[in-house]
């Protein structure tokens, strides 16, 4: 009798949990119920997500989560962060431990299709490059026989092998797990070339080199690394909110709406695009199931994409916009129209 009761209760609990998950909008409802977005971030990558001296998470990836929280909950601080390693990140998303993963993650076919994930946009276009001492004086096609310092177990290592094979060149990898040791090995001359994503190379050159001018980043970029926030499949409403929050940040930069002038723009702008974005002419918020001030909240509290980039990537890593400039400035950041 008792055992039957327990079993029945157990079955009901499982059924209830299953039902909750099958329901559309489960993640979104969950976020609204708990009052914050659980955001998976990198355990420490300056400019993208790193803790500052006060232990607060900062970076361009962190700003995506803050923007989404501002759009959905009206407060950019309604975010809780879960630092994740590369190996953990997808499990955390699949198991529902986090609502969104914003952790410099490259969008690829397998991840999008096979792992049950949805990339909601690209907030940083990166690519793998080479750092060499200027004294070496070669281009990327003349690296035959070079010793290359590389970190193991990443796409970086695979891209490196692919590139050299495609060019019919040989190389000798010096595989070093720890980034500090890897860069120390490079600057002490143990290898001719250091390779990682271009954003990483720039910061290593400016921060770790005795004299940065002695080193050059080769113009050849050997891989495409579109990095962006990811959510689990199954709650389209949630992935829409995440996608359009990111788009609103980019769109705002295009219209010249900044953290500073957003109130003025909201009151005075006659541009119909700006009026739609800021909810002066309503409809966009309703379409997404959000407050009409959703985009206004993002820009007011987090800033537009350019401001976030400036504050994090340029200030911390000294990187120019490059590929991440707006399409109007010759870059790749092209926001779908908010209308």
């Amino acid at each position, binding site marked *: 009798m008792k055992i039957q009761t327990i079993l029945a209760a157990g079955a009901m609990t*499982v059924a209830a*949990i*299953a039902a*909750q*998950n099958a329901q559309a909008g*489960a993640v979104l409802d969950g976020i609204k119920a708990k009052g914050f977005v659980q955001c998976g971030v990198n*355990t*420490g*990558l*300056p*400019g993208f997500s*790193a*803790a*500052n*001296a*006060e*232990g*607060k*998470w900062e970076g361009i990836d962190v700003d995506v989560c803050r923007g989404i929280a501002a759009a959905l909950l009206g407060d950019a601080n309604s975010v*809780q*962060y*879960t*630092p*994740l*390693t590369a*190996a*953990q990140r997808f*499990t*955390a998303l*699949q*198991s*529902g*431990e986090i609502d969104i993963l914003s952790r410099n993650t490259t969008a690829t076919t397998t991840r999008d299709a096979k792992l049950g994930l949805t990339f909601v946009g690209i907030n940083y276009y990166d690519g793998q490059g080479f750092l060499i001492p200027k004294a070496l004086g070669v281009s990327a096609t003349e690296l035959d026989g070079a010793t290359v310092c590389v970190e193991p177990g990443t796409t970086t290592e695979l891209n490196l092998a692919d590139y050299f094979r495609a060019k019919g060149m040989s190389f000798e990898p010096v595989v070093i797990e720890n980034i*500090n040791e890897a860069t120390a090995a490079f600057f002490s001359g143990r290898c001719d070339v250091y390779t990682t994503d271009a954003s990483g190379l720039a*910061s290593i050159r*400016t*921060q*770790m080199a005795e004299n940065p001018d002695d080193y050059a980043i080769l113009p050849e970029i050997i891989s495409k690394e579109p990095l962006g926030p990811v959510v689990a499949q199954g709650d389209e409403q949630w992935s829409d909110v995440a996608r359009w929050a990111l788009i609103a940040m980019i769109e705002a930069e295009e219209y010249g709406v900044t953290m500073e002038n957003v109130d003025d723009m909201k009151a005075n702008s006659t541009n119909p695009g700006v009026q739609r974005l800021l909810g002066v002419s309503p409809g966009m918020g309703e379409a997404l199931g959000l407050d009409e001030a959703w985009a206004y909240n993002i820009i007011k509290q987090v800033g537009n994409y350019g401001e976030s980039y400036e504050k994090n990537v340029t200030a*911390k*890593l000294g990187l120019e916009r490059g590929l991440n400039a707006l399409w109007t400035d010759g870059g790749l950041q092209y926001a779908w129209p908010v209308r």
Partner: protein
Amino acid sequence: MSENAKLPPLPVGTFVERSVTWSKKNLFDGWFNTILTLGSVAFLLWLIPPIIEWGIINATLTPTIEGCAEATGACWGFVNANLRLILFGTYPYDEQWRPLLAMILLMGIICASLGGVKYPNVRKWIIPMWVIGVPIIAILMWGGVLGLTYVQNSYWGGLPLTLILSSIGIVFAFPFGLLLALGRQSNMPALRTLSVVYIEVIRGVPLITVLFMASVMFPLFLPDGVTIDKLLRAQIGIILFTAAYLAEVFRGGLQAVPRGQFEAGESLALSYWQSMRLIILPQALRLVIPPTVNSFISMFKDTTLVVIIGLFDFLGTVKLALRSDPAWTKYYVEGYTFAAAIFFLICFSMAKYSAYLEKELRKGERR
């Protein structure tokens, strides 16, 4: 043999004379020892001055990047500027008095338990102290009641996390390991096989694998929407792992107790548990104090591995601070030296305590 024969001769002569005699006897005793002595002195002269020059004379404590760039020696300013990040990780800045208080409380309980073992009137308070102390620590860390804001444990970090992971690990792994050791010695085949399989499987894999399973694989086996806390999973992983090693240590102790002691217990008509508690375990555990403390020390250091599952223990927060600003990244030698010093301090205290405990418990054997 008479004890007196071993005593050294009483010192005679002036201090200088005695020093010369002592040196001749201990440092320049034959050509081989003379070479060793001179070689060691030369090595130390070569090694120590540059370290002092780097670490103290030319070092700076100025907590700014500019100040560090000017110094030719160590940049302790890195530690100075990021001390709170290193100590408490990403715990909310304004609430960091809570982990500080929790850490002091935990240290207090640990010290009182260790020092109080000797005194019967303190000893009876040890268990109540833990029973009351641990919930207070949990309330301080988590909050959510008594007007304290709730802090998810993905924000815990630094020294408090290291101490919590290792002390809770030790407190739970000890009895579990003991049960496993007894299970392995048991006459019941099922229990024995179970214990052997458990111990061998866990000992056969590295801790990293256990943590990885707990953090990456385990959540996939749970039904959708059910998550078990990341920190709890890591803590359980550490307990399970340490228990297997402790079990083997305890088995060594159990086997070293003479057969006659077991039989003595039986002939007094003591039950299994009575003879274990009163006769066997006190002897067995005392015998294995050094390897047990050895296990504790290695487990304390192993907690640094939680960094691979995204938890920031004390070493992890040093790394976090190194990455807080790219300009700090190159001062990793200073950061790791600081971490090493703190780890050494704690491990050395553990070793010293075990030596003290051995001496205390061996009093019964001395005449």
